[in-house]
């Protein structure tokens, strides 16, 4: 029970900032502002309409303060909750609550990162953990690799099945004109790529790009007066099970079980009601774990489930339709891009990768090392009233 009301708020505007490799000297705040500018234009609102600022980045310790300065919004309601890559799914719930409470009327949720330009170490300094750092895990990859080792041991998940996830993401990316990766990928390519943290090669790992963006949210009554159809927030749930991988209760079960169950309950839906699935694929094992924990297949069956291209463009379940963090864009924290793609799918704006008759989308954010799980279920007007 989270107190949020099904469909009380909607996402009305979405946009990426520049992504991939951005101009030298661009700051994370520049990218947030660019995303906000474009997202406001997407829905026909102006900067002066904004009175709620939600943001997170690893490159600005006080990002909401910096963004209020940048946008000259001294009176804005602010929230810079940061729980890793799923921060933006959390922001959706916080913005929905703030809109319902009258704390703001037009909320923007923004992200920006220049980690490719300035280097990952500069963009996101690792905190020293006396119980992990001495062992030099290559984080975050090694944490997810440990989870993969456990999944392979318990359920017989294979290297090839992990690679299927990367191949499907690449096939979707080839349909997305702004995706970073432009060339086909085979299972053999994934297996023979440079090893990073066993069993992962570099092709099991998300991209390291720059990028940012923004979404605009309003209460349902305000949202309907704008030019584009609102995309309603139908369900939300979150679960933060740990921060460090050595404290994860069970490496084969994630908090997506709890966050997904809460989101389905609020949305009055189940997995069979979902048309489009956007899962935070920082590593290939993520997609498998989340498909299981969100009910799309039984626990342990994820590897077999993704085989044969089932989650690719020709498959039966459309997953990560923009190409995902693996092949489209992954600027450090990816959660906002899941929301942007889901909204575009529900508006029918996705061209060659458009999922037919998409009325509902499940967005699942992941933060830290399988730590902070947050599920958002979105829907069209038809889904809202169904």
């Amino acid at each position: 029970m989270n107190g949020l009301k099904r469909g009380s708020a909607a996402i009305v505007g979405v946009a990426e900032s520049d992504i991939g490799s951005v101009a030298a000297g661009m700051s994370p705040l520049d990218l947030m502002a660019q995303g906000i500018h474009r997202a406001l234009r997407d829905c026909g609102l102006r900067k002066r309409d904004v009175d709620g600022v939600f943001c997170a980045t690893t490159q600005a310790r006080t990002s909401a303060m910096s963004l209020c300065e940048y946008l000259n919004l001294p009176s804005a309601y602010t929230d810079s909750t940061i729980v890793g890559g799923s921060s933006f799914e959390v922001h959706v719930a916080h913005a929905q609550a703030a809109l319902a409470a009258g704390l703001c009327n037009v909320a923007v949720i923004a992200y920006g990162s220049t980690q490719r330009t300035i280097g990952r170490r500069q963009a996101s300094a690792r905190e020293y953990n006396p119980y992990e750092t001495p062992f030099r895990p290559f984080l975050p990859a090694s944490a997810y690799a440990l989870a993969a080792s456990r999944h392979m041991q318990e359920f017989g998940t294979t290297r090839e099945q992990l690679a299927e996830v990367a191949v499907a993401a690449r096939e979707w990316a080839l349909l997305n004109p702004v995706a970073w990766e432009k060339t086909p990928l085979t299972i053999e390519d994934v297996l023979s790529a440079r090893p990073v943290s066993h069993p992962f090669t570099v092709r099991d790992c998300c991209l390291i790009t720059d990028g940012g963006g923004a979404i605009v949210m309003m209460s349902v009554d305000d949202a309907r007066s704008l030019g584009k159809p609102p995309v309603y927030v139908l369900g939300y749930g979150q679960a933060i099970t740990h921060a460090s991988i050595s404290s994860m209760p069970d490496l084969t079960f994630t908090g997506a079980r709890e966050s997904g169950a809460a989101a389905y309950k609020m949305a009055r839906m189940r997995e069979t009601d979902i048309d489009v699935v956007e899962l935070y694929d920082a590593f290939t094992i993520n997609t498998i774990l989340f498909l299981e924990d969100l009910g799309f297949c039984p626990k342990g069956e994820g590897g077999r489930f993704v085989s044969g291209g089932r989650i690719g463009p020709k498959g039966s379940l459309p997953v990560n339709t923009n190409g995902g963090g693996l092949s489209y864009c992954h600027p450090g924290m990816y959660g906002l891009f899941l929301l942007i793609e889901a909204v575009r799918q529900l508006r029918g704006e996705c061209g060659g990768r458009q999922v037919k008759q998409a009325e509902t989308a499940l967005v699942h954010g992941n933060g830290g090392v399988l730590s902070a799980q947050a599920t958002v279920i979105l829907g069209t007007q038809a889904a809202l009233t169904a």
Partner: protein
Amino acid sequence: MANATTSPLATYIEHLERGELAFQFSPEANAAIFYPRVICPFTGSDKLEWRISKGTGTVYATTVVYPQKGEPYNVALINVDEGFRMMSRVEDIAPLDVRIGMRVKFRVHPAADDEPPYPVFTPAEGAP
């Protein structure tokens, strides 16, 4: 209330300096606690006892890191027999040969330069 005279981390490291793998036990939760803390995460109580592990455990998960420079090395999660899990490394074996379910035994990696001692493990096949 007077300030604490030592931290959970300092106590843990003092034990390592004596060759001991220490962990906390929460009597109220009847559970081992690791990493060391000031309160029990299950009950919220500050009644935590320090205990010394026998130093035996089982590999729960394993990976091999391939650094850009240098040799590949193991990183593992170890289920220690007293009922807690920790990150460590299994030594004296090729890193890719570390297997989930393998029995392992603790030893201290000694302090070096500014780095305090830390616990590593070695294969202990046949150990109970």
